[in-house]
């Protein structure tokens, strides 16, 4: 079982410019832990010191915003696609 994480441009300096990373984990939190062990420093960009997801980051599991699910405890199925997307766009009144 493996999942794919799509790394946004501002974080690719941690991943040697790799766009997608294969990981294995049962929850988003576990997957962040794996990213951290492979790319040290990346988790601090994703989460506050207390462990909560940073305000300007959205994380989606197969297109579903984890703020609608169980946040970092959100379960991640086999072959799921995890997107990390900075909350930059919007504003289309």
């Amino acid at each position, binding site marked *: 079982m493996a999942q794919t994480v799509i790394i946004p441009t501002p974080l690719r300096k941690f991943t040697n410019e790799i766009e997608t990373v294969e990981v294995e984990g049962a929850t988003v939190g576990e997957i962040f832990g794996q990213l951290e062990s492979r790319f040290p420093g990346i988790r601090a960009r994703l989460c506050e010191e207390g462990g909560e997801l940073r305000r300007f980051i959205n994380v989606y599991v197969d297109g579903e915003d984890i703020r609608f699910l169980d946040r970092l405890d959100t379960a991640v199925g086999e072959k799921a696609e995890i997107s990390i997307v900075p909350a*930059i766009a919007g504003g289309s009144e």
Partner: protein
Amino acid sequence: MSNTRSYIKGLKCRECGHPYPVAPVAICEECFGPLEVDYDYDAIKETLTRDTIAARPKTMWRYRELLPIEGEPAVGVQTGCTPLVRAERLAKALGVRELYIKNDAVSHPSLSFKDRVVAVALSKAREFNFEAVGCASTGNLANSVAANAAASGFPAYILIPDNLEKSKVIGTQVFGANLIPVRGNYDDVNRLCSEIAGRYRIAFVNVNLRPFYGEGSKTFGYEIAEQLGWRTPDAVVVPMAGGSLITKIHKGFSELARLGLVEAAETRFYGAQATGCNPIAAAVKAGTRDIRPVKPNTIAKSLAIGNPADGYFATGVIASSGGWSEDVSDAEIVAAIRLLAEAEGIFAETAGGTTLAVTQKLIAQGRIKADDRVVVAITGNGLKTQEVLALEDLKSIEPKLSAFEALVGATQIAAAGS
């Protein structure tokens, strides 16, 4: 305008203040906060006076020093300076003394305020030597990017939710853009655009050009102040989707005060949403700045952004200015569209109906007072969202005077004609 010097010092993170050079980037690498343009206000103050502005053409570029381009504008040169209408009949209906409609329903070239942001973004795309442009859109932005890209020779990639109003689809397709409906809502479309922008060199106006793009909205505020005789209103009511416009009008007023072009800006900012998509209004009412995303379900599709990127800043502006936020039902939106049309002869889209209906609610609540000078922001044209109006069926008559009189009634005609 012969003034082509740049007044931009660089970009900086709105959250942590980290500085960046001017480039097509939108996010702080340190904290993911949004980047914003850092201007040299001291230099601007030496150049930009009421007189220099008054001597320039009636377009949004009369405030060029406060816009983030280096040279002359390349796109949307004629955009801006829409009417500020003193709405006396509507004021009477609402029970306020001084009411104005800032009417971007007649914006050039695509009939929404998005022409302002696109003019800046595509001018900037040209400066950055991009060869293609694009956007994620709920419709109005799609129309504007497509129109302005056609006029300036950019190929455009425009991604929209696949449930948009037909008139917004046609109003994009007609310009020859690559129009791509996506199975999902705006937030899904937006996420996809961020990922495309991460891989291909396309100037997505509201993704990688966002720090520049958003600045165009300030001109909506500059124009209101100038049209009021260099005064800011007591209250302004603004529709909120991503929450950017309300923060940019606030920034515009604050900059004018900083430059001494208006007295201290003490406007109260009121944000309008539809009840079917009210994450910002809900946060304001709950007394928090933090946004809980929602799944949109409203006829006001141009406001249907469930996870508003600037929501955190919009709630900040509303709270610190002493304003408020409300939301209204689809039925109230439609009723307000008709009220504005019948009282002032202005046909606004659903976002405009939302804004006016919220204005009525705020007056009823006593938050906007009878002696306030009030501006209502109308940002898009009703011809784009005609589908929401179910008007009465019309009866046709024979081409005979007697048939006309039988239908309308001779007494009514006599009364109207006297």
